[in-house]
């Protein structure tokens, strides 16, 4: 079974982009357009990795991240931050920070190193 990646970004164009990149590299994907929706999707889909944007309407990415880390079952899910703003301080132990605009090969490389 392919590994599953959850994409959380409020911009549908970016979601499409990431979905295409990951599925082209043999991963399954699911997506959410807000923090709230993201939490529900994590619980329902149990992804192997999460791609998280920081600046979104409503709740920002870091808050999603804190809620995720509080959940015992989900707290070990690796998170890659993909964002246009500097958020190193906001999400402490993310696997990587990828700045928009990003190089898709590099991103896939990080994903491969993390979940194979």
């Amino acid at each position: 079974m392919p590994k599953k990646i959850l994409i959380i970004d409020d911009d549908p164009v970016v979601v499409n982009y990431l979905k295409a990149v990951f599925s082209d590299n043999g991963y399954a994907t699911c997506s959410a357009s807000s923090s709230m929706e993201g939490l529900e999707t994590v619980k329902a889909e149990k992804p192997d990795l999460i791609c998280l944007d920081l600046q979104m309407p409503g709740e920002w990415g870091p808050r999603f991240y804190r809620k995720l880390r509080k959940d015992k079952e989900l707290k070990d899910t690796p998170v890659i931050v993909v964002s246009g703003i500097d958020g190193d301080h906001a999400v402490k132990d993310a696997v990587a920070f990828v700045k928009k605009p990003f190089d898709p090969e590099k991103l896939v490389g990080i994903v491969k190193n993390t979940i194979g």
Partner: protein
Amino acid sequence: MLVDDEEGIRKVLGISLSDSGYTVFTAQSGEEALDIFRRENPAIVLTDIKMPGMDGIKLLRALKQENPDTEVIMITGHGDMDLAIKSLKYQAIDFVTKPINEDVLEIALNRAHEKIRMRQQLREYTENLESLVREKSAKLIEIERQVAVGQAVEGLSAAMRDMAVDLEGGLTYFNEMPCFVSIHSPELKVIAVNPLYRDRLGDKVGHDSWEVYEGKTGTKANCPAAETYNSGIGVRARATVKTASGDKAPVMVNTAPIRNQNGDVELVVEISADLAEVKRLQEELDRSQQRYQQLFDEVPCYISVQDRQFRLTAANRRFTEDFDTEYGAFCYEVYKHRNEPCPNCPVMKTFEDGQSHQTEMVVTSKAGERYNVLIWTAPLRNSAGEVTHVMEMSTNITQIRQLQDNLSSLGLKISSISHGIKGLLTGLDGGMYLVESGFNKDKPERVQKGWEDIKTIVGRIRKLVHNILFFAKERELKPTRIAGLNFAEDVAATVENRLKASGINFVRDFDDSVGMLRIDAGVLRLALINILENALDACLEDQTQNKHKIGFRVGQDAGQVIFEISDNGIGMDQETCEKLFTLFFSTKGNKGTGLGLFIAAKIVDQHGGKISVESKRGRGSTFKVSIPNIEPESAKTKENIE
């Protein structure tokens, strides 16, 4: 004085301090403490740090400013070490922590006593020293003075002696004078003249004393020398002299008799000042005084002169123009409409140390406008070298400050926009990736999707660029007359296709009676399109239903043309509505720049109109723009200039 907001501490500590022999005043707040302090002037103040209102640190600073000799002991709660250390920085003598240990308190009090005692001793020494110095220097000055007087008397008498004995030698004293000086013999002959006399009136040595004078003065009996010999006392008179070149010049003549040892008048000294010269000098003096006055009035600064009580004693024209100046009014009243001197007053500092000081302040003019001013002070001293007044020069730097604000908002803008651009680039990358990989894998639906994404992003880029261009350039309105309905139709047509493509029902509701408008159509259109596009986004984001509708109503009401744009999208909460029109406020995450509605509001404002919004979360929003259908004042003047 003991200051604490807790009654228990005031009571217990108050009693134990009274027992130790102190007279104790208590206060329950910083403000009360200051009142008591001004009345009683206690030497030692014990104050809690944490109090509602004016806290201990503020109180400490106020006390130290009013009387630096006051010793202040801070009472701190457990773990307020930072505050305690901060208070030491502001020159508290010590601090004690709660709960208060009597021994610790005693040590702190002793320390305060020690400091007060030392300061008193130091002051006594200094004062003794000062009075000693004063005494000695007074003596020295007295001796100096006597010596100087002695020398002057000696010099004068020597001069007189020389003159009497040796006329040639005596004359050198007159050579430098800007007057005609001559010496006359009892035979009424000129026996010596100074160079100026020779230059202007001719070398009259050996001639008759009256020869240079015109009219009655120019006769043997009435010339000043003759009168002096006759009366034995000096003469002072106006007369007219004939110059060597044949001109006539008015002069003021003074004579003095010089007597021999028998008391007889032996010689007469005649000194004449050229009145034209005197007048010329006086005019020059007046002119330079006037120049100074002009300079004082015209320099591009506010200049005022203040005494030790900060009362205005002089002010230049610019100052009087912008501020209410009544001589004797207080600077802080005139400048800041305050009732007491400002903290950090540079004038006060200059009085204290005699140095020039500089500071920046915000002052309020008599018209109520606020100016940022840069203030320089300079001491004015009396002849004894004491600073009696301070001159204050303030340069109005409001415009520089505004420019600075603009620059910093520009910086903010650039960072906000650069974030937006990163999002757009990512989107373009995404679209290109889909198109490219779609072609490679021969998946036309993927190419199609990628192309749609690219179109979306290009649309966003276009909007961003428009907004930036509008924002970057402050353009003047160029209003033209346009039929209101034509304008509305044009706006509607611009967005209609896009709305329909997104499956949204676009409803026009135009009132036919709307007449002509005077607007800058291109600019106002941008504002309305920004609002319509927001309505579109609000509908697209709302996934609770799929029957979305955007209404565009145009009507009129009380001299205003109303444009109303309503949607049934996601809506906004109260807080969002309030911030909506501020710069860089965006609810759209990566997709927004926070420019659109800010610019819309600005445009409406330029047209002399109003913009408002009503919205509820989950219920949609209604934006209302009203534009006066007479032309706006600003537009009128702009057009007249053109």
